[in-house]
């Protein structure tokens, strides 16, 4: 059953090869048996899932099925699931059972998809390695000594391990794309506002965006079709018509203009990763694309500006955790201030507290202009850089991360070293443009993702490019359990 794509499962369900209940039971048994190794799930929602599967089977029986009807998936544990714990991988919310469903969750349930459980992640989505989870680190199915990436590391590991064909993720500064890159998946961060943030526990509201993580671009397009759309309940949801994201998958790439920003290929980039990316770009060129050198001059500034804006917004968003209305509450508070301070000190982990402190400082009297407003001005410079580049080219390509997945524990001591890993992903969130990662090879057995960025609302174009690339390459079909050990591009002679 493992590593079937979403499309394959949908076909099997439609053909009656097995029922949704059967595959859901098999998947849950598989997770129980094998996830002790990866720790990709925080919780399983077995009873709810079987109820959803039975409803899906009934829909399939009467011919009222959507493509997702009966297809199992997993939610990052940041999406509120009505009646099932939603922890944000934090002690603060370890027992939190939301009284409502996120809009994305509701849309997937309405399509008939079956949520088997909630995946591990960096606490409150703050991290690039999935090592800050209250529920323990996640291991990369490709190499158990490596991180799966973060913050959607559990979602990435759950798909890469072959438990589920698709998982939801969120991407505030790369949290879908970087774990997708590290785990050989296809993951897309849509345009800011394309997918509703309602019912997703907020990290940095002007940057947060949800998207799917799958094995193929086609699966990601199908998931995004269900997830995207205007939502009255999210004040920054965009009132744009939602296209069929699968409609352009088969368009040829002839005449496509691809920009390669020189800043994405600087000295910080691992040379073997660079080789994988250039080999991928060559393939896309063979498909008829024209490759053009471009520049995004303010790229490096995305790191300091992001690490002001995101913690500032986080310090505001996380002020709601006060020990009064939901979540953890400290024992025997002496007074109101003690209740707040101890609840938060005991409920939040180290990285979350550090970001709250940084954000509080950046927003405090006397520093607001020097940090927060300055970062917002730089944010506009970054947006303008993309506008200039995307007036010359259709899409921008480069690496997702400077290295393949790094070793567990190698970056946990120095937060700044970890932040620098986000150099290639942050700018798309700053500008709000869509961006994705698609499998593009291996370095020493660890996957490398090709980063594809496009103009606002150009998700269908990005998915089209990834899909066409996947018609002529087989990187995305490699699994950690493949009989042959994946080789690097050079060895394969690509």
């Amino acid at each position, binding site marked *: 059953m493992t590593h079937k794509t979403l499309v394959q499962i949908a076909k099997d369900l439609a053909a009656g090869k097995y029922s949704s209940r059967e595959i859901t039971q098999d998947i849950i048994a598989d997770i129980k048996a094998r996830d002790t190794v990866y720790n990709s799930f925080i919780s399983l929602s077995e009873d709810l899932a079987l109820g959803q599967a039975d409803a899906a089977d009934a829909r399939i029986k009467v011919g009222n099925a959507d493509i997702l009807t009966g297809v199992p998936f997993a939610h990052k544990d940041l999406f509120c699931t009505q009646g099932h714990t939603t922890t944000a991988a934090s002690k603060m919310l370890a027992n*939190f*059972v*939301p*009284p409502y469903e996120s809009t994305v969750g509701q849309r997937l349930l309405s399509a008939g998809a079956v949520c088997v459980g909630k995946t591990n992640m960096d606490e409150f989505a703050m991290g690039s390695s999935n090592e800050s989870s209250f529920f323990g680190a996640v291991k990369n199915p490709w190499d158990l000594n490596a991180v799966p990436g973060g913050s959607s590391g559990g979602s990435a590991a759950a798909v890469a391990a072959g438990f589920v064909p698709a998982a939801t993720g969120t991407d505030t500064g790369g949290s879908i794309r970087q774990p997708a890159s590290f785990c050989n998946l296809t993951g897309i961060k849509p345009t*800011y*506002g394309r997918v509703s943030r309602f019912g997703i526990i907020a990290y940095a509201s*002007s940057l947060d965006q949800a998207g799917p993580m799958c094995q193929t671009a086609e699966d990601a397009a199908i998931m995004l079709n269900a997830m995207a759309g205007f939502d009255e309940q999210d*004040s*920054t949801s*965009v009132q744009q018509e939602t296209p069929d994201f699968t409609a352009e998958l088969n368009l040829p790439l002839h005449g496509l203009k691809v920009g390669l920003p020189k800043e994405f290929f600087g000295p910080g980039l691992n040379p073997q990763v660079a080789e994988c990316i250039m080999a991928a770009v060559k393939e896309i060129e063979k498909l008829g694309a024209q490759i053009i050198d471009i520049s995004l001059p*303010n790229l*490096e*500034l995305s*790191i*300091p*500006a992001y*690490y*002001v804006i995101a913690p500032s917004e986080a310090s505001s968003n996380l002020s709601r955790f*006060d*020990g*009064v*209305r*939901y*979540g953890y*509450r400290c024992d025997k*508070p*002496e*007074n*109101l*201030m*003690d*209740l*707040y*301070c101890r609840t*938060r*000190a005991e409920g939040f982990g180290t990285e979350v*507290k*550090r970001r709250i*402190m*940084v954000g*509080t*400082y*950046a927003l*405090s009297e006397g520093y607001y202009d020097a*940090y927060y407003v300055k*970062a*917002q*001005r*730089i*944010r*506009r*410079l970054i*947006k303008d850089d993309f506008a200039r580049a995307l007036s010359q080219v259709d899409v921008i390509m480069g690496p997702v991360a400077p290295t393949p997945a790094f070793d567990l524990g190698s970056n946990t001591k*120095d*937060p*700044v070293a970890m932040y620098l890993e986000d150099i290639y992903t942050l700018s798309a969130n*700053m500008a*709000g*443009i869509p961006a994705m990662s698609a499998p593009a090879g291996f370095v020493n057995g660890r996957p490398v993702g090709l980063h594809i960025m496009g103009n*606002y609302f150009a998700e269908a174009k990005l998915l089209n490019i990834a899909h066409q690339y996947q018609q002529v390459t087989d990187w995305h079909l490699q699994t950690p359990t493949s009989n042959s050990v994946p080789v690097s591009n050079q060895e394969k002679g690509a």
Partner: protein
Amino acid sequence: MALENADIEKIAVLARLQVTHSETNDYANSISSILSLMDQMQLVNTDGVEPLSNPHDATQRLRKDEVTCDNQREAFIAIAPATEDGLYLVPKVID
């Protein structure tokens, strides 16, 4: 810019986080190194650049002031850590 322990204690109060004495030093070190990363921003001239708070430069969408969902008081009270008679409990605020 390097932060002193006294700065950390002040920020901790603003952030409503209890910070122990030993943690204060760690925060001073790690936050100071983060702030020196941020100080790269000061090298760039941004005079006349409008701050960007929404990627689409969108303003807040308003809705009609009308009731759109049922009262879910009980569902929300049910998940609170301490309640009594449908009210949230907090330590005594006024003596």
